[in-house]
């Protein structure tokens, strides 16, 4: 059995990242899109932490903490927008958010 190296983590992170991208690009439900963004951020975090392990320093971990902060802020603002939007249009489907088209 091959030992687990950084590459393995990168592959997992890439898989999670692509799953997130698929979610963002194909789902209509805004909540799930926001969750997919969390998936993407997690994949990035995993990469950072894996590199941190590879290089033997803590910068990656600190960055991942900043990204967690960023994810929290993004979730708060995104869900706020979602609620305001839902209150006005009674829908949470992203393809119905098309006022800017005009």
């Amino acid at each position, binding site marked *: 059995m091959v030992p687990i190296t950084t590459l393995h983590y990168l592959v997992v992170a890439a898989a999670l990242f692509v799953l997130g*991208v698929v979610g*963002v*690009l194909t789902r209509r439900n805004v909540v799930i*899109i926001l969750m997919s963004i969390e998936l993407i951020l997690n994949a990035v975090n995993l990469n950072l932490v894996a590199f941190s392990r590879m290089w033997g320093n803590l910068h990656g971990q600190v960055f991942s903490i900043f990204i967690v902060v960023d994810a929290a802020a993004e979730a708060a603002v995104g869900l706020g927008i979602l609620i305001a939007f839902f209150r006005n249009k009674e829908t949470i489907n*992203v*393809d119905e*958010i098309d006022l*800017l088209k005009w």
Partner: protein
Amino acid sequence: MHSAATAGDFFFLSRIWLIPLFPAFGAAMMFFFGRRLQKATVSAICVGVVVVAFLFACFTVNDYTHFAHGTGQPFEKIVYTWLGSGDGHLTFLKKDGSAAAFNADAGFLLDPLSAIWLLFVTGVGMLIHIYSVGYMAHEGGYYRFFGYLNLFMFAMLTLILANNYILMFVGWEGVGLCSYLLIGFYFHRKSASDAANKAFIVNRIGDAGFILGALTLVWYLGSFRFTDLNPLLRSGHFAIGDPVLTAAALLLFVGACGKSAQLPLYVWLPDAMEGPTPVSALIHAATMVTAGVYMVARSNAIFVLAPTAMKTVAIVGALTAIFAASIGLVQNDIKRVLAYSTVSQLGYMFLALGVGAFAAGVFHVFTHAFFKALLFLGSGSVIHAMSGEQDMKFMGDLRQRTPTTFWTMFIGMLAIAGIPGLAGFFSKDEILWQSWSSEGGAYRVLWFVGFATALMTAFYMGRLIFLTFFGKPRMSHEVEHHIHESPKSMTVPLVILAICSVAAGWLGVPPSLGGSNPFGKFLEPVFAKEAHVMQVEEPRQLAAGEKEEEHTDPMEYTLMGLSVGAAIVGLGLAWRAYAHAGKDYKEPIAQAAPPLYKVLYNKWFVDEAYDYAFTGRRKVGDVRLGVLGLGEASSWFDAKIIDGIVNDAGWVTRAVATLSTWWDKWIIDGLLVNGPAVLSRFLSYPARLFEWGLVQWYALVMTAGLVGFAVYYVWK
């Protein structure tokens, strides 16, 4: 004018304009408060104002006799200028091209003619008001009835006292309106409302003639005022037979025909008996229907200048007299007999006017007002006693049970039949004599007509009285049980009218019978001058004023004897046929000549003929004539021709619009407007690929771009 200087000395005469206002006040009270007033209050107000008007009228006429000193000088009181302007701002062009001021006054004229009418209208009107208190006691709409009666008195007095044709026309229309309202008093009965409509519509025809005649006069002579017209007409400037005056006179006579029920416009009067009996007595016997006579007498100055019109009046009058009398011979409804009798007597009056015996005509109006009102009120009393039954076939033997009614009506019968000593004798004989003697005997054939009418009159009046009061009782037991004499308020007017029916005749006893004819003398100034005109222009024609001298003719006594004989023969025939009538009595005319009876019973089929010819209610074959026919024709014209043109125009418009729509839709909008838009949309389609509003598309493009760049840089 002397009158202007002296009018102020006479308290009542200078306030003559108050006379019509008394009943107007009563009518206004009924209009505004009548619904809330007690019957006793209504009676007090409405009868009270008429009594006051009568007393005021008596004092006014008394004042007038002092004012005129027997000269017949008219008294005129102009209250204000009512129509047009007093200072001549409103002018019109007369026939001769000169300008004249158009104005009509609210002005009042009292001369012997209007004085007579004033007295008997207020007097008879007062009695009938009193009678109505009893007659209408149990009827609904009590205040309404008296309100209408008072309104009628107001209109009639306006008509009589007007000093010009236009104000007269106001009264003329006012009495027509009240007649309409009162005929239709029982408006829930269809026959009553139909009769009211008939009266109103037939009268409109006459009224059109009246107003056209009056306007012809003002166009020709420049004034509506009698005191302007009469001196002008009598000045001798106008030739006898002047065509414009003839036209005016004929038109005025059309008006008189409508209001006074002459051929061919008499048809409304028999139907007018649908109204309450006091109305028949007051409006449709004594006063309103004589308005036509009054108007022709008032216009005598015009008529004497138009011999054609005079002949027309005489012939129409005579024909109406005999025509209506013949129908009256066989009618069974007690009020209808009296209605045809009224038409017939009005015919006598016009006969008198037509032969130039104005005073005799007016005298007959005067006496007729009393005995015909008496007969109508008596018949009302009979109907009252008979619990509403009007058919004489079911009456009989009432003389014991309603003695006052019987005796007063008996006097009325004698009076109308022309028995010497009673009113009808003097007035009718005067007319017959005048028609024999006037204008050198030109109208003698009309005397025969009048004579035959007198015979018929005696017969049908005898028939009425004998069928009602003699013979055997033919009514049902229930009705018989209820027969009773009428209350005092009804019998007292009957008695007063009976006394008048006897006494009125003595006012006009002719010289030939040893009298001085004070009635004729009193009227002489109104008509006298015509004789002068006629003698100057055409000595052969002799008119009213001149005939006094011919009364010594022995022929007059012969004729008098003949007509008295006719009256006695007529009454005798009626006595023989009806005095002992049982339940199965036979009409003598029906037995002698059944077809004639049928024709008479159906009133010569005049109503039917009118329905065919004028109203169009009956079709001639498949065609409708008359008013309805005209309506149908214009409806057809409107539906087929006018609407057809409209529809065709609409079709053309629609076709043009379709074409224009096509052009607009496909060429303008399609090619010129939408074309550039479609083109630019087509051209902009590639740009739209990147801007179609879906956020995820942007992300997708971003991803693809990322991949593309990465691939490009990694594998470069």
